[in-house]
């Protein structure tokens, strides 16, 4: 019996049947359920609920605030775990600076508090409690030294306490927190009014899209013309995800995954278009890049098919730039070692291979000073996503 696979994105629906994949632009006036029913109602009628599999990134994911003791351990480990659990929005606070730190205005889905190896105590004090009183959050989880758990539990309502993510050898222990965040993400998807209704189409668990992509990564090089080390760039309407092979970084984290994930929340081409344009205008290469593409900066203000293409090209460039050596603030990837760049998501439906190649050529020439490029693979028919979805049918692990 064939399966029906559906991905609900912030901009498109993807619908995959045995032989073909179709894609529908979202109608933002309708809610997801109605929109999907309107566009694909007849398709659903052909499948049983147990043969329908849905994943979604439409809700934008969870917003996270991490409060940690140091950059090299607490914050780095928690951030790594959060990204790999499919979380998109992450802000961090170094505990020693908590008194000067700004309080986020929006509601935070989950606050993560971490610091200290087991055996030490008194890491956290009233400063944390004072700060947390000002923060609006839905969940809070503690993954620091076990000795502070009682103190924090007695002062913080509904604090979830999990095993320390920092081991006695200062290595990362990711399992419990990853499982917790993944489940929270699932619960969040299910809890969203929009998504809730989707269970009328399926009797299977609805997963988050990054979770599905992550599942397929170790299988990619055996299924496509993709060679390690590679990156997968998923440029979406709201955020841009980049999944990268771990040998592109040197960061002393000993984790179970061969691939890590990073998200740029402000480089989407629709919902976060303004921040994308802003980032572009502040980049030293962009005017040269626009000239290279034979357009002027006015294109950034336009609403046209051509403008969309240019924006997408810009977002590819900016993502690569942000992980390159020129931008030490983010994770730095050794892009000179890169063998393949895989592009997936809506972008493959808009840009031609030549347009993608042009931008990557520009990047390698200008930023990397290299003339030979990694191979570029455009995942036109969402094969990576399909692979992850199909792979997911047999194995249903509790976490990523």
């Amino acid at each position, binding site marked *: 019996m064939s399966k029906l696979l559906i991905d609900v994105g912030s901009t498109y629906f993807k619908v995959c049947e045995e032989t073909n994949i179709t894609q529908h632009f979202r109608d933002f006036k309708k809610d997801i359920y109605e929109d999907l029913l309107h566009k694909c109602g007849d398709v659903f009628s052909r499948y049983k609920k147990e043969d329908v599999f849905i994943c979604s990134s439409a809700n934008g994911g969870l917003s996270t605030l991490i409060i940690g*003791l*140091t*950059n*090299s*351990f*607490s914050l780095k480990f928690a951030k790594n775990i959060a990204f790999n659990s499919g979380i998109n929005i992450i802000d961090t606070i170094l505990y*020693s600076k908590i008194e000067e730190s700004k309080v986020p205005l929006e509601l935070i889905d989950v606050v993560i508090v971490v*610091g*200290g*190896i087991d055996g*030490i105590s008194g*890491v956290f004090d009233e400063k944390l409690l004072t700060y947390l009183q000002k923060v609006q959050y839905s969940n809070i989880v503690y993954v620091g030294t076990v000795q502070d758990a009682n103190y924090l539990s007695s002062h913080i309502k509904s604090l979830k306490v999990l095993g320390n993510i*920092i081991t006695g*050898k*200062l290595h990362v222990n990711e399992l419990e927190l990853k499982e917790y965040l993944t489940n929270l993400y699932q619960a969040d998807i299910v809890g969203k009014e929009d998504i809730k209704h989707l269970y009328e189409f399926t009797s299977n668990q609805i997963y988050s899209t990054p979770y599905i992509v992550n599942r397929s990564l170790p299988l990619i090089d055996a299924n496509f013309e993709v060679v390690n080390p590679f990156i997968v760039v998923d440029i979406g309407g709201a955020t841009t995800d980049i999944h990268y092979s771990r040998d592109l970084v040197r960061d*002393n984290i000993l984790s179970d995954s061969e691939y890590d994930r990073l998200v740029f929340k402000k480089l989407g081409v629709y919902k976060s278009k303004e921040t994308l344009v802003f980032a572009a205008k502040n980049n030293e290469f962009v005017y040269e890049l626009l000239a290279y593409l034979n357009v002027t900066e006015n294109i950034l203000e336009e609403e046209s098919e051509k403008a969309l293409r240019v924006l997408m090209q810009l977002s590819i460039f900016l993502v690569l730039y942000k992980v390159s050596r020129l931008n030490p603030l983010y994770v730095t990837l050794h892009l000179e070692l890169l063998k393949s760049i895989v592009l997936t998501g809506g972008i493959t439906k808009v840009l031609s291979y030549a347009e993608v190649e042009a931008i990557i050529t520009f990047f390698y020439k200008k930023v990397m000073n290299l003339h030979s490029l990694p191979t570029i693979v455009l995942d036109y028919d969402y094969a990576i996503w399909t692979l992850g979805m199909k792979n997911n049918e047999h194995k249903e692990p509790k976490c990523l």
Partner: protein
Amino acid sequence: MKKVVTGVVGNDIHVVANRLIDISLQARGFEVFNLGVNTSLEEFIDAVVETDADILLISSLNGEAEGWCRDLQFLRSEYDLKDVVFVIGGNLAVGEAKESDIIPKYKSYGFDLVFHQVDLNTGLDVLEKYMSELK
């Protein structure tokens, strides 16, 4: 049990010394957090904070620590680390240099104990004595 964070500035060739320091410290009853070779100053300091260590013992084998540890005072004040004993040992200068020049220089960077070309066990004896006198 006193806690020590240790590791090496510089690269892979110095693994043997690093591991011997680790074993020696354990044999002397310290709890050891070994960050290994090629460790950055920030990683050292952060490890001290995460483990609430009593001692930071940095080894530098080929004078690589010069210039590298000038930010130490700054980082030390970022966190409240005045009770932590900072120790550096190994071969602290490139080429020939007088011990009478090297020791004050490293002390001015913020180290409490400085061992230049001192044998491992002798250095650790001094460290133990220093720790017992602190009490």
